[in-house]
């Protein structure tokens, strides 16, 4: 009897929750349809069938996703990998109906043309009006997701909002030393030097770490302060595109000058002596120990450290505009990329291709997008003046993005269009203030959105790029650490890169780029 009443209670709640969207206009199938899914979200490597978001999607569309995930994508390295689980799935021989993952683009663009995934161009045109409407407004993004055969093999996760990382500084240290916010690279250097020598934390020890970074490639990004370029996209050491020409930051003279200056900064102690080995806890450790002065990191998470003001007297960590280079340019190289290489695809054994693309399209409808971004109405957010506003208890339950993953929202392995409003609601005042500052200055530059290779191009890339990248990084670190002089070594370095096939690689990238983005 008890069981029965429990079931009844659940039925009753479901019944109460359903009416608002019970009109059925989003329904795809009359009879409930089950589709299997592999889901490798970087932070949640499984598809939970009892996520509230999945349950509502099932209610609305009639399509029920069954978890069929093998393996987990390990986060060994920010720049590579994360496709181990996909490789494992493919090697196992059975591809589920839907495959969703972080870093799925290169994978589907390689194996899609071989027949492992369903090409989507025609399906989108015929059955996915909402996705088609989105691509009609963003042809650049449509080009970026295509494989070398011109087909789309996945529906991407499309981040919203422009800003990612920014320059941060201890403004209370500036005040303590009577310094102004640095506006140029020379002023920035003077500030870092003052942090190093004038004991801003006031403990009498020479223990301050003027510049630090959680990921050491963020140090390399400082070459933009001398008109160099480092990372062409949100992937470290990536190629860059300028006026339709593919290049690489580590080949430029601005980079050379920047590295020379960073080597000087390093030897003067302006940069964390342990920058290459401190690792991901650098920010946490150096800020909470009252040692770190300045960094280059994400708006949302970094602004959160201002909570330390309850422990460290006067603690204030604020974003500041990118300092101007000697030639007067101010750029912020990092931005939230327009289209992630994440999303989902249809496996070649799927027998319900049309239903699946309609299901993908559902997430681009107004209701689907809201579901993907904010969770379930009434449970996680309420509609206030036509806008989804998170419930207070949901905001208070810890980091909001993590809470959302746990209910099945904001999954990077799902193709959907992010709504930046979700993030604004839990960004603190320091983040919002910083974003306003960056908005005003318009410091962002275009990203390289990546290219899809033909098999022959892929061969050239495979043969050359790994070796070239290793060599570049090896030289880069040793120049900064002072074993070798970048100015003296430069010509030999460029010659060595050419002998490793750099020019051939650039030509291949260029031809792929021209094909994909129409030259």
């Amino acid at each position: 009897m008890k069981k029965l009443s429990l079931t009844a209670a659940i039925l009753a709640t479901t019944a109460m929750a359903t009416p608002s969207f019970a009109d059925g206009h989003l329904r795809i199938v009359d009879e409930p349809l089950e589709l299997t899914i592999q889901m490798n979200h970087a932070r949640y490597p499984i598809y939970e069938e009892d996520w509230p978001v999945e349950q509502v999607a099932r209610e609305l569309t009639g399509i029920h996703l069954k978890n069929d995930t093998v393996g987990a994508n390990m986060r060994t390295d920010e720049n590579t990998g994360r496709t181990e689980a996909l490789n494992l799935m493919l090697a196992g021989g059975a591809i589920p109906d839907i495959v969703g993952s972080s870093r799925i683009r290169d994978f589907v663009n390689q194996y899609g043309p071989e027949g492992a995934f369903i090409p989507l161009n025609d399906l989108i045109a015929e059955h996915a009006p909402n996705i088609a409407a989105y691509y009609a407004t963003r042809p650049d993004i449509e080009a970026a997701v295509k494989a070398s055969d011109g087909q789309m093999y996945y529906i991407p996760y499309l981040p919203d909002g422009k800003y990612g990382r920014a320059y941060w500084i201890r403004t209370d240290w500036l005040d303590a030393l009577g310094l102004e916010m640095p506006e140029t690279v020379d002023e920035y250097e003077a500030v870092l030097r003052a942090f190093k020598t004038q004991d801003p934390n006031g403990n009498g020890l020479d223990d301050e770490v003027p510049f630090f970074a959680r990921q050491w490639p963020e140090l390399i990004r400082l070459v933009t302060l001398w008109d160099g370029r480092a990372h062409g996209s949100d992937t470290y050491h990536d190629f860059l595109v300028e006026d339709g020409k593919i290049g690489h930051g580590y080949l430029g003279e601005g980079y050379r000058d920047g590295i020379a200056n960073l080597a000087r900064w390093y030897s003067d102690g302006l940069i964390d002596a342990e920058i290459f080995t401190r690792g991901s806890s650098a920010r946490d450790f150096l800020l909470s120990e009252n040692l770190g002065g300045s960094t280059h990191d994400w708006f949302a998470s970094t602004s959160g450290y201002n909570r330390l003001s309850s422990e460290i007297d006067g603690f204030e960590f604020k974003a500041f505009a990118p300092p101007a280079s000697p030639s007067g340019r101010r750029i912020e190289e990092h931005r939230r990329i327009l289209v992630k290489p994440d999303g989902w695809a249809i496996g070649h054994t799927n027998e319900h291709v049309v239903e699946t693309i309609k299901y993908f399209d559902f997430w681009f409808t107004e209701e689907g997008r809201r579901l993907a971004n904010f969770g379930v109405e009434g449970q996680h957010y309420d509609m206030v003046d036509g806008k989804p506003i998170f419930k207070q208890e949901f905001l208070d339950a810890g980091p909001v993005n993590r809470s959302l993953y746990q209910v099945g929202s904001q999954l990077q392995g799902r193709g959907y269009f992010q709504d930046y409003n979700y993030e604004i609601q839990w960004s603190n005042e320091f983040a919002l203030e910083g974003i306003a500052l960056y908005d005003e200055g318009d410091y962002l530059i275009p990203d390289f959105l990546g290219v899809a290779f033909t098999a022959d191009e892929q061969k050239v890339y495979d043969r050359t790029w790994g070796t070239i990248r290793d060599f570049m990084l090896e030289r880069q670190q040793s120049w900064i650490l002072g074993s070798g002089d970048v100015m003296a070594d430069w010509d030999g370095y460029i010659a060595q890169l050419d002998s490793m096939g750099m020019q051939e690689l650039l030509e291949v990238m260029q031809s792929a780029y021209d094909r994909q983005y129409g030259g």
Partner: protein
Amino acid sequence: MVDRNTGIGGTPVEEVVVEASEALRDRAKSYTPDSSWARTVDHFKREWQLYVMLAPTIIWFLVFLYKPMYGLQIAFKDYSIFRGVANSPWVGLEHFQVLFSNDQFIRAVWNTIKISALNLIFGFPAPIILALMFNEILHATFKKTAQTIVYLPHFISSVIIAGIVITAFAPTGGIVNIILGWFGVDSIYFLTRPEWFRPIFVGTGIWQEAGFGSIVFLAAIAGVNPSLYESAVVDGANRWQMMWKITIPSILPTILIMLIIRIGNIMEVSFELVILLYQPATYETADVVNTWIYRQGLQSGQYDLAAAAGLFNALVAFVLVMTANTLSRRYSQTSLW
């Protein structure tokens, strides 16, 4: 591996053998099987327990060592995971050409050999010396405590070991640099200096494994016949002489077998520790074949190239272990096979 009829004084080995063979003969008489098939069945009936005990090892070899050999062919193919091992097209020696025209791969091969050679020179004697030292400790509690302490690092995961090493060698606040500071030495960022990588890596390996590795030698020492020591005492030998004249010669077969195994593993540097400790700045000395395979092959999905490199690795190791075994058999009559 060792001729058991000699060198084990005091045990009536020959008597045991004679008894056993007589028993077998009696049994064979009483059953009088009419064919070899029946004899085989009969043999399994009698000895099935042994085969049951052997089975897990055989299965392990089949599943994890012999079956994967089928996949080795991808070293000669343009492998696509989707097309599978059998359906990927052959490309001959293309991957090997790529490997040997790659300076970084060649450098990784040399780095592997250099690190392994250092490991062999400094790392191989360490557990033997440790075992001999333990053997000389008379105080039981002290001996047990000392053994436990040196065994412990073996049970710590490489990730933790790397964390300890990175912290200990850190330029600010690392214990090593603090101590160097007392002697007026400027702090050194050890883990970004190519010349320091090998000493740190080999030293870490010894610290981690010497204790645990000494167990096998301690076991060998325990097997030495006590009467040898007793008669040496009667002859007036001191402990030092007993160690040189009795203990070491007695465990020499064990030492040689361990050495051959070690040489067979020469291409296998514990690469997870390398990955945790190296930096682009130290690739010059730290990049070994397996880390190179990991970066170029696995991270960028070039399984065929990685398989080619792995096959090369295995060939080198095979040649080395064959050579070591032959030499050992010729000069000391001790060998793996």
